[in-house]
């Protein structure tokens, strides 16, 4: 049986305090070995943009990872669907917009996608991750280990937490 091809996309600016949660997550997650039956690919960027749709091609499962001001208490894990309307800003787009761009680019439905949003509070220039952000990062990484051990859309749907 071929392995589940998982792609993890994380974004943020490591020079802006907790905004660096995405890249910090990716650096740690990338260093962990894949469990049996999973082949992971990791993509880091400053911002999520529509062309990241191309990174989803040929994958079975997608995980978006970002910092979030609103995630409570430590992280939120939810299903993402292709957006029918975009957020107003394209200062960086939402994961659903990337899925919508995938549909436009490839003319078919994107692979099942989920978002792991990690609690963030401070975004000052030159600041490291805050104390709470570091704690939330550890919890999110532990949760990711559980996700990777059950890498299927059905299993992940049962692990959704938060709004």
């Amino acid at each position, binding site marked *: 049986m071929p392995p589940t091809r998982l792609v993890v996309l994380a*974004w*943020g*600016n*490591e*020079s*802006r305090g907790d*905004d660096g949660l995405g890249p910090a997550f990716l650096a740690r997650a990338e260093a962990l070995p894949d469990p049996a039956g999973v082949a992971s690919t990791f*993509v*880091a*960027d*400053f*911002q999520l*943009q*529509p*062309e990241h*749709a*191309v990174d989803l091609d040929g994958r079975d499962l997608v995980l978006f990872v*970002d*910092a*979030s*001001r609103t995630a409570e208490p430590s992280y939120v894990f939810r299903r993402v669907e292709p*957006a*029918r*309307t*975009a*957020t*107003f*800003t*394209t*200062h*960086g*787009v*939402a994961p659903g*917009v990337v899925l*919508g*761009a995938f*549909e*436009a*680019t490839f*003319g078919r439905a994107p692979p099942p996608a989920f978002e792991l949003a990690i609690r*963030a509070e401070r*975004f000052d*220039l*030159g600041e490291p991750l805050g104390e709470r952000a570091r704690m939330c990062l550890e919890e999110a990484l532990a949760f990711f280990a559980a996700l990777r051990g059950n890498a299927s859309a059905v299993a992940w749907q049962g692990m959704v937490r938060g709004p």
Partner: protein
Amino acid sequence: MAMQVDLETAPTQTGMRRVAIDPVSRVEGHGKVTILLDADDRVHQVRLHIVEFRGFEKFVQGRPFWELPVMVQRLCGICPVSHHLAAAKALDIIVGATRLTPTAEKIRRLMHYGQILQSHALHFFHLASPDLLFGFDSPMEKRNIVGVAAEYPDIARKGVLLRKYGQEVIRVTAGKRIHGTGAIPGGVNKRVTTEERDVLLADAYKMIGWSREAVELVKRLHFANVGLYNSFGAFRSNMLSLVAADGSLDLYHGDLRARDDAGRVIFDHASYEHYWDLITEEVKPWSYMKFPYLRALGPEDGWYKVGPLARVQNCDQIPTPFADAERREFVDFGGGQPIHATLAYHWARMIEMLFAAEEIKELLHDDDLLGDDLVVTGASRRRGVGVIEAPRGTLIHHYRLNANDQVMRANLIVSTTHNNQALNHAIRQVAKRYLDGRTLTEGLLNHIEVAIRAFDPCLSCATHALGQMPLEVELVDAAGARVDALRRDGDGGIARNPE
């Protein structure tokens, strides 16, 4: 030259209301537009406020100089490679590398044109095309990249794949898509393999074809509504850019050329090594961002615009055939006079994207690209200036080091700063025409944003604001009391008089 300054400072603020738009959506960083109305609800004063990101210049102080090319990429999430290369060029001077090896220079050029391609594609396809394809007054739900994907899937698809191709060029030359370390003081640290070159070449001609289609699309849009496109936010100004030694368009390196609003050369082939002899910055009490101007003309007449509209008209030719043919058509459209239409930025930008695609193909066919001689050094210096034509315009990095090779002082002049006065003028023109009264509508506000987006400004060069970019409009009376307000949230919802 008669530069318009009449709206910058109202004679009196008595009896005026203030309309504030904060922040400007779909641009990097944060901005705020303030419009003072007189007692008869006519536009009396307009100012674009931008919080300039000078913090980064303090941030790099004390850091060893070799960290800079990687560190400065965090300035901008859209064009990190421009900062990477401008810093590396400044540090070339510091390590005495006055002339790079052919391989190193061509790898850097390839990286830069990959950046130009992807950034211009982002700007046109993802940020501007929704306004241009659907109209400035179209519903917000439609006027975004998802709306384009629904109604023009081929355009959206090509926008995505052009961006992706540019990112791949960057990955091959810089080592990674972000935090690349490709350019180092004195050269590059990564060679391009034959296999990498061949992979990029396989799609290079397709990118040229799609870029030609993009130029046709923007021309079609311009010609379809030529009256609006020629007049919207139009203003006359000087123009500044780098040009190559033979006067050609060169976005990686050259000397400075400035023309006046009629196209006459003000100075030419001026070395940027002492840019402060040519350009200086004015401070205005109402703005955090400085106002650069040509020293020879003074602050009243010396301000200028940078970026695609300036570059395509400042140069004598473009060294690739398809782009030069488009440049000639563009210049002919002006009928012997420079084009100052703000919306013509999009047309010029697509000509540059075509140039970038052609230049990438040329570089990929150049065997110097595959060489191994990557770094040179020479007599070190304490100060270095690097200038590059970033996607949005001229970008200056200037560093001074102490005896421990640490940054003692940094001065960065980004394209948005160069365009500061020009942006104010474009907004004024739009506000005078469309904002006359007390009624604030989404359509009216978007006209101002359309003008700002034509310049594609970074504004504060900040990156990744967590999507928290609501658009807020506030109407404040002469006494300072808010009489009306609109806020457009990140999800597109509109709230009137929000808390």
